[in-house]
């Protein structure tokens, strides 16, 4: 079988996790822990291997032949619109399937340890595999509709997994919020598809891409902006970003895989796929770039004040996604995709490490009561330190090559305003990541600083996800339908700590925080390693730009920003690193000794109101909620009461009423008196004669 035919079997890659999902949905509970987890992980591993086969096949072909379509079946055979369920194996999609399956496999492995003891173990892995399958369909689609299928699928799985501990109200709310924010974005996707159908008559990537240059600029801009609306939803940019922080209610493997490494990059993928439209519409591209930059800076400032380790990482993700979007906006596609890959490594590592820390700290996510964990969780600490160095852009780790490449590109593209913002965001990155690492792993140990809440005996040592109520009395009259023992978690306790809340103590009862089992540490180590050496994928030295060359067939014809000379590139790199170092230093100076008391954060105290503003995410989400609550609800009520009830029902009922009244009126004619009827007869005769008279007169 030659390489071309081999590439046509790419459909196997999403099929494997899909089979896993179906199997585990039906038999997950019977298969049980840990076999279900190993099945899921094994299938991901197989998918990864097949992805490598695809890579090999593609590499053996000349660059111009590396784009292969395979049709699974004809989906919509209508004359007006013909859409196939077809996959496209080309450098862009192969890159993404390796990312999803590879990182996914590692995180599946991690989850076997993390979800140990949870009664929903089988269900978890079913959803996890389903997510992987959907994501793979998304990136392998040959046309917008298949991608949209995957898009909706990952949205669904995100919802299912965020609200995995579904008896917990905060989790349910988080899942709902994620779904609804994403729905707004999906609306944009659908409108864009409708425009594409109207303008081009097809949804195929190749055909629409080729025709984008010659279509009317209004349509092209509209399509680009509508697609970007979907991207802001899925990749958590302004204006649709608040869901990502509430998505942290889900188990940490979910946060790592879906909300850091893979699903949120679907937006980046979409823009890369639809790049002809953004190339053809400079206005749309400008919008994209500026939103990315502003989001990166804003999210960075918010992250500096978060007490919850997962929420800090969530805002960090939003900020890094902002970088990727910025790169897309200025046409630096290779830089953006490079950052996607590197970000998956180091952010994934950070999240897995955070999960490990949380497990060790009795499910308590508040960094203000951590400190000095390096002594207790050495492996985790090492992994997270490497990832920290990578994300802040310290050479020679991955972030230095990828993130700084993005910052350089802004300068080279000539957009100095964007460059300033991007650099400031890099400072922020330095600050908040350093703060996170030092509060958690260094400084003074604060986990015994607060009085212990009333102890509820922990269910056996291995079940780490028993989140017991932190001294919160069980509510009054409502007897919860499920007990904690049944659920495996406490439905009244939400581990997430919002900015204004005061710190809660973990219930360690004199024990020290403990390190995680090996099955959880292996993925952390692997990802840390990849964060360290990942830069080798695309060094800015001519001949070593593997990623750039690999992706070239996809982006041919696009002029990606590049340094005009080697010296200029070097100087820019130096400047970027310099500013990152400033951020690191600031945070180090403030936090390297830890906190004096758990409720006194020096940064917050110094900045007072500014800190409150940033810490509360500039009240954006609160504003949206208020808007939806008051005007939104009023609008909905108006539509219901006035439009639906009065106008629509009114007109329908009105017609019926009209008929009834007409009938009532006409009924008066039939009063039963024969003589009245006789008048009717004579009247008719008169009329007839009159007609005849008129006729005769003619």
């Amino acid at each position: 079988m030659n390489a071309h035919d081999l590439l046509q079997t790419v459909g196997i890659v999403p099929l494997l996790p899909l089979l896993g999902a179906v199997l585990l949905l039906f038999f997950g509970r019977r298969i049980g822990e840990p076999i279900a987890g190993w099945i899921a992980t094994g299938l991901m591993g197989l998918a990864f291997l097949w992805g490598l086969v695809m890579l090999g096949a593609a590499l053996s072909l000349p660059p111009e032949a590396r784009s292969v379509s395979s049709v699974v079946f004809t989906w919509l055979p209508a004359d007006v619109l013909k859409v196939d369920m077809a996959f496209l194996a080309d450098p862009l999609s192969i890159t993404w399937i390796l990312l999803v399956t590879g990182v996914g496999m590692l995180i599946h492995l991690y989850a076997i340890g993390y979800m140990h003891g949870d009664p929903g173990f089988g269900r978890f892995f079913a959803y996890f595999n389903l997510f992987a399958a959907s994501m793979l369909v998304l990136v392998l689609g040959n046309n917008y509709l298949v991608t949209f299928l995957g898009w909706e699928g990952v949205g669904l799985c995100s919802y299912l997994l965020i609200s995995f501990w579904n008896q917990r109200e905060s989790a349910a709310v988080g899942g709902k919020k994620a779904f609804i924010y994403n729905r707004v974005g999906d609306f944009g996707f659908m409108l864009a598809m409708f425009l594409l159908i109207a303008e081009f008559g097809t949804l195929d990537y190749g055909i629409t891409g080729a025709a984008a240059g010659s279509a009317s600029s209004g349509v092209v801009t509209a399509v680009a902006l509508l697609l970007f609306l979907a991207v802001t939803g899925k990749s958590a940019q302004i204006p649709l970003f608040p869901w990502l922080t509430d998505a942290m209610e889900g188990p940490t493997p979910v946060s790592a895989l879906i909300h850091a490494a893979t699903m949120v990059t679907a937006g980046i993928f979409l823009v890369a796929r639809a790049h002809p439209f953004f190339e053809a519409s400079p206005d749309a591209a400008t919008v994209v770039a500026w939103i990315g930059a502003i989001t990166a800076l804003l999210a960075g400032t918010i992250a500096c004040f978060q007490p919850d380790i997962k929420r800090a990482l969530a805002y960090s993700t939003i900020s890094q996604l902002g970088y990727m979007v910025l790169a897309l906006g200025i046409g630096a596609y290779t830089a953006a995709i490079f950052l996607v890959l590197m970000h998956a490594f180091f952010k994934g590592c950070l999240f897995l490490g955070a999960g490990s820390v949380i497990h060790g700290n009795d499910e308590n996510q508040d960094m203000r009561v951590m400190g000095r964990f390096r002594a207790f969780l050495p492996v985790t600490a090492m992994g997270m330190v490497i990832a920290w160095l990578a994300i802040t852009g310290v050479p020679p780790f991955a972030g230095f090559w990828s993130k700084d490449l993005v910052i350089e590109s802004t300068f080279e593209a000539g957009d100095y305003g964007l460059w300033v913002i991007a650099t400031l965001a890099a400072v922020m990155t330095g600050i908040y990541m350093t703060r996170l690492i030092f509060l958690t792993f260094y400084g003074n140990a604060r986990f015994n600083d607060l009085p212990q809440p009333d102890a509820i005996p922990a269910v056996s040592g291995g079940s780490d996800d028993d989140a017991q109520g932190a001294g919160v009395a069980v509510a009054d009259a409502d007897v919860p339908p499920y007990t904690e023992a049944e659920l495996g978690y406490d439905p009244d306790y939400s581990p997430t700590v919002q900015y204004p809340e005061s710190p809660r103590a973990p219930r360690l009862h004199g024990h020290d925080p403990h390190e995680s089992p090996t099955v959880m540490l292996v993925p952390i180590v692997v990802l840390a390693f990849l964060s360290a050496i990942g830069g080798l994928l695309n060094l800015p030295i001519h001949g070593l730009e593997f990623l750039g060359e690999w992706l070239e067939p996809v982006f041919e014809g696009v002029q990606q920003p590049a340094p005009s000379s080697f010296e200029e590139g070097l100087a820019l790199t130096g400047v970027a690193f310099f500013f990152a170092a400033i951020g690191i230093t600031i945070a180090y100076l403030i936090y390297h000794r830890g906190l004096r008391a758990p409720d006194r954060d020096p940064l917050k105290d110094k900045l007072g109101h500014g800190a409150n503003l940033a810490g509360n995410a500039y009240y954006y989400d609160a504003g949206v909620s208020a808007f939806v609550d008051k005007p939104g609800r009023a609008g909905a009520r108006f539509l219901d009461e006035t439009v639906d009830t009065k106008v629509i029902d009114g007109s329908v009922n009105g017609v019926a009423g009209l008929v009834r009244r007409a009938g009532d009126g006409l009924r008066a004619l039939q009063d039963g008196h024969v003589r009245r009827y006789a008048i009717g007869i004579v009247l008719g005769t008169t009329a007839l004669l009159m007609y005849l008279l008129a006729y005769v007169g003619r």
Partner: protein
Amino acid sequence: MTVFLFFLMGGLTLLGALGVVLARNPVHSALFLVMTLLSVAVLFLLQDAELVAAVQVIVYAGAIVVLFIFVIMLLGVDRSEALTETLRFQRPIAVALGALVLVEILLLAGHSWATGAETTSGVPITGGGDFGTNIQRVARVLFTEFLWPFQLTAVLLVIAVVGSVVLAKRSGQPVGDEIDAAPGPQGESVP
């Protein structure tokens, strides 16, 4: 002579008709009807329709009006009718419509309706050769051209007879709900 007779008989006809409509006692109406019918019979005679005139007297005035009188006496509806009209505007509308119909007919009658059809039966009323008396002429037309309708009328009469017997027969059950039980409007003639 013809003129004199025409106006005399015409006047009597109209007089009798008005009498039928305006007389308060139904028996009086019946008698006025007889007057009308006999006048019409004379008018028939004036137009060389001897057989029809005879039949008019025998059947109409002799049988039908007698039937009317029978029923009037049988049902006892010979009381005088009240003068006030119960239905609103019935009288003005009726008179108006009647006048309107009259005017329209008169106007229409002034025109000739040329349908292009010539005499249908080929048997003229007067003259035209060897057709005989009026009776013979009528018979000739009736039993040749109008034979089929003639047979049908025979069937019709049988049906009418049978129908009348069936309808008027007293059935075994009490007959109470054939009329609307609601009392009639005001001004009903006192039973």
